[in-house]
């Protein structure tokens, strides 16, 4: 028989959404986001478990190991809130919330890392840097808008989708087509990066290489240097080492009167 426990309200899920921005506040190597998950779910748990002892016991469950991509954690938070609701109201008293979290965190971690870190972020950065190199002061704003429309929009909706679908990750992937979108962002990023190199002669005055070469030659020299640096990175050079190397080469050229 179902117990008399309050169902979750929209405001509770909004509370979970707000707290999801703090999910990594105490990130550590061994527990990663475990405490953050419990913290984010607290508004929902408080509604479902007015009894302090029971609340504490549910908090103990949610402070166990947890790690996923921080934005897609919203989906798991929504699903976990729903599972806790099912459990607390007695509809599914034996529901294993830990198993649900464990099953979701690895696939969503891989999906989110590839989509957000591996494609959306480089796309927004490439677009912003391309615009910045023209001398436009509003490039940082462009970056934030391009990135956060997707980031905040998804983070918000995923709490509610996770709650309503009870953590249907296949449905989520079909709905948003993350893999297809990621590929498009990656290709566009590469095209924009190529364009950055191709327009080197038209960069703003603070960025344009101060080398006396005609525009077509400068573009070709820029491409050659980019490809050479790509090759060096491919064989194991790090950006820091290449920066030091570039600085040393520039100094040698300046001392030799070449530039």
């Amino acid at each position, binding site marked *: 028989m179902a117990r008399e426990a309050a169902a979750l309200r929209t405001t509770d899920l909004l509370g979970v959404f707000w707290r999801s921005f*703090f999910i990594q*506040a*105490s990130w*550590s*190597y*061994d527990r990663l986001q475990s*405490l*953050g998950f419990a*913290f984010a779910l*607290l508004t929902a748990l408080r509604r479902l478990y007015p009894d302090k002892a029971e609340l*504490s016991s549910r*908090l103990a469950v949610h402070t166990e190991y947890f790690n996923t991509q921080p934005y897609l954690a919203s989906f798991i938070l929504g699903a976990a809130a729903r599972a806790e609701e099912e459990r607390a109201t007695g509809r599914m008293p034996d529901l294993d919330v830990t198993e649900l979290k464990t099953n979701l965190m690895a696939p969503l971690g891989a999906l989110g*890392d590839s989509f957000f*870190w*591996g494609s959306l972020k*480089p796309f927004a*950065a*490439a677009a912003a*840097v391309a615009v910045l190199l*023209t001398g*436009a002061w509003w*490039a*940082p704003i462009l*970056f*934030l808008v391009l990135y956060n429309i997707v980031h905040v929009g998804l983070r918000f909706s995923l709490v509610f989708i996770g709650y309503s679908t009870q953590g249907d990750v296949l449905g989520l992937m079909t709905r948003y087509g993350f893999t297809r979108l990621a590929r*498009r962002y*990656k*290709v*566009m*990023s*590469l*095209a*924009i*990066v*190529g*364009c*950055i190199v*191709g*327009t080197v002669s*038209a*960069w703003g005055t*603070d*960025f344009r*290489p*101060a080398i006396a070469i005609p525009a*077509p030659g400068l*573009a070709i020299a820029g491409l050659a*240097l980019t*490809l050479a*640096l790509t090759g060096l*990175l491919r064989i194991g050079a790090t*950006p820091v080492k290449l*920066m030091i190397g*570039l*600085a040393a080469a*520039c100094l040698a*050229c*300046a*001392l030799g009167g070449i*530039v």
Partner: protein
Amino acid sequence: MFDAHMIMQVLAAAVICGFIGLDRTALGQFMISQPVVAGPLTGWLLGDVTAGLVIGGTLELIWVLDMPIGTFVPADSTVAAVAATAIAALGSPMPGDLPVIGFSLLMTVVMVPVTMFADHLMRKRNAQIPQLVLASDGRPTEAGVTGWHLAGLIAFFLKSFFMCLALVPAGLVLVSGFQMLPAAFFRAMEVFVTLLPLLGAASVARKLSMKILDKTLLTGFCVGAVSVQLLHLPEIAAIILAAAGGWVGVRSHGA
């Protein structure tokens, strides 16, 4: 050199770094901590937007694909961008001084492994927090979870704050020495800064493509070069054309 006004400005830079650094992992991750935003924001607050724009623009692409996957902690580009901008803004005789910007960038970038180590130590120390939330019966309490979890923000803030507080004064001392060097050093740093976006381009190409001569990269290059040099289109139009070309290209291949 370090009068009361300068000390206040260095402290202000460290506070800015502490707050912006929170966005990197601990709070929100709205990407305010990315160099392309953190640099100009710091520059604007310290009175040299140009330095911030140049530093942010040059550093952004270099580490953009260093991904925080699992327990990997990527290079701290936020401290590098904020500290380099602060050193350039406070240490140069005029705003937007490219040689000083180049030298500041070089110094802070060299210190990146140190900032990564500080990050590593702080995260290792955070491992104690889950033990602290437990009450005497061994179960976590609501107040314990909330209080100790949010206390983690202080640790993240302090890490960026102290890194910047150490880097900026040291950088200012070195910049004052740099300004006494022969003109060739200034010229070298000027050229160095303007070549860094190409390193950023190489860094992105390296991570997004398996090939050195990537077809999409070369198409973007041709679109950019032809649009600007032959068609005399504004650069922004070339960027839109290249992005649209990439979108259409990937669609036509069925992705």
